[in-house]
């Protein structure tokens, strides 16, 4: 292909325009709207106790989901790539369900299962557990929607690598944990970290499922995305945008981390 082909410039221009209209412009709007009433108004919104609580809850739910899914993802990836059994394909497919189901439906499923009319209600009452309209519910649905990320990023790496190194270590008498720590983990650590970052990004921004199950109790069960919606519906535009900037900032941090990890991962491959 010629270097000065018009197609090349056309495609570059098209992509740039698309990115500008779809990403850069809205981002600029968020920032300009957030600072519309001046910096002190912006600072007031951010230091508001509801905002801080929402931030805290978002970080907590994200952290809980990431921890759960890291453990689950590692176990699932190990089980599905190291043991071959008849229905392992079915399990692989089931892990992907959260990708396919709309988060709102996921929220509904949890509400209907664990809510007042749900079949699990008597058990929950017996143990004095509350899931719907509570932090537990928010954590559970966040786990649900981010379930596949880590398992799905680690699996191909484990699969491509084969089992011989682990077998070699086992033949020399290494136990399961030693094998994981010394042989398997160094190989999957970048993939795992990449999965964790994707999982974190998804967990922080989750809206639909959390919205259904949280009950929007301000100062109790509202996460940052929910708070943005509440403020927006109250016509507090500047406040809504100000809270949004927190999410934007977190997203940017994750984006940078993701790129660093990607870079490290690729240099580790060579």
């Amino acid at each position, binding site marked *: 292909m010629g270097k000065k082909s018009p197609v090349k410039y056309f495609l570059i221009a098209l992509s740039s325009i698309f990115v500008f209209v779809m990403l850069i412009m809205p981002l600029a709007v968020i920032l300009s709207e957030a600072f519309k009433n001046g910096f002190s108004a912006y600072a007031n919104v951010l230091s508001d106790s509801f905002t801080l609580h929402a931030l805290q809850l978002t970080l907590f739910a994200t952290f809980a989901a990431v921890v759960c899914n890291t453990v689950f993802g590692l176990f699932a990836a190990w089980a599905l790539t190291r043991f071959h059994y008849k229905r392992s394909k079915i399990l692989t497919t089931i892990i992907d369900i959260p990708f396919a189901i709309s988060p709102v439906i996921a929220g509904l499923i949890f509400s209907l299962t664990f809510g007042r009319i749900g079949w699990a209600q008597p058990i929950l009452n017996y143990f004095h557990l509350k899931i719907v309209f509570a932090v537990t519910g928010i954590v559970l649905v966040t786990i649900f929607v981010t379930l596949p990320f880590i398992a799905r990023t680690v699996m191909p790496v484990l699969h491509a690598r084969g089992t*011989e190194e682990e077998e*070699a270590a086992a*033949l020399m*008498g*290494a136990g399961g944990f030693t094998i994981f720590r*010394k*042989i398997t983990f160094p190989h999957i650590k970048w993939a795992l970290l990449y999965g964790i970052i994707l999982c974190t990004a998804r967990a922080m921004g989750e809206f639909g499922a959390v919205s259904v199950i949280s009950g929007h109790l301000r100062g109790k069960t509202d996460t940052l995305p929910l708070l943005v919606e509440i403020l927006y519906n109250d016509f507090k535009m500047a406040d809504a945008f100000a809270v949004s900037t927190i999410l934007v900032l977190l997203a940017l941090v994750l984006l940078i981390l993701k790129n660093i990890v990607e870079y490290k991962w690729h240099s580790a491959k060579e």
Partner: protein
Amino acid sequence: MYIELKNINKSFGTYKASDDVSFALPAGSLSAFLGPSGSGKTTILRILAGLETPDSGDIIIDGQRVNDITPAKRGIGFVFQNYALFRYMTVFDNIAFGMKIKKISADRIKKRVGELTELIGLKGLENRYPAQLSGGQKQRVAFARAIAPEPKVLLLDEPFAAIDAKIRKELRQWLKDTIKKLNITSIFVTHDQDEASEVADEILIINKGRVEQSGSPLAVYKKPVTPFVAQFIGENSLINNYDKLKGFYRQEGFSTAVIRPEFISIFKENEQYQNSYTAEPGVVKTVTFRGSHLEIVVILHGIELKAVWPTDRELLISQEKVGVLVKKMYLIDGGNIREIENEALIADNSVII
């Protein structure tokens, strides 16, 4: 006998990977499992190591049944086909791994790794990572790693498969000498008959999960006992209408004949030779240079036969008319094999006597 397998069976779904496998190998022997790919030789090796569990049968090492003993406690060193070196560890850590697991003191580990890197000729490369080594070097590190914890038995899965031809030859000899020096009972898997006969004291021919024949390389070559072995060993011609050849008659039940190149004598047209009237006129179809000899395909009664011709004689050329004498052949059917000599030749010889 040091290593014994008794009636080992193993299936993967409907595929029978090991079919009533039994054999016994003496201590200090160096044996080869030889067979085509997919014949089940690696499975037998993995069963011996404990990486696969047989469906039935006994595995005995040094007089002890080891079926229920974990792989790590069987005292086996294993060299994997692709070496399976720990890629995030240095050469030193790779070789030391087994000893560290065994909680051997750091001083002794250091000394032993030193000895082993000396033995494999990689002294000074202890801090390299596997990715920084050549294929032959990786192979030798894998070997050192396998023997470092002083196993009783060494198993090698296709140890030379991933190495280029020139280094492979050197490495074969090196491996044979080293194993003999260490006096460790060893088995290696290969699909290359040259490799098997060059390195091993004893060859076990594996086909479809069964041991077809075992014995010294010479014995297996000279006296194949099953149709498969007759076909698999050597560069053979496989023909159906063998009764067209002078001196051979169709034998009841045997539909196919296997003829080795060395069973065929080829004479130039003007040449004087013994048994001249038993030779038949044929035509050279192709001549291929093989270094030490020429590989010839001659056509005789429409049958293509592979033969050899020494390079120090006047060379043969394509389409040249030659005299062809087939001295013997193996006749095979489903399960039987029979070696027959050229009858004309027997009669001819008796006349001379």
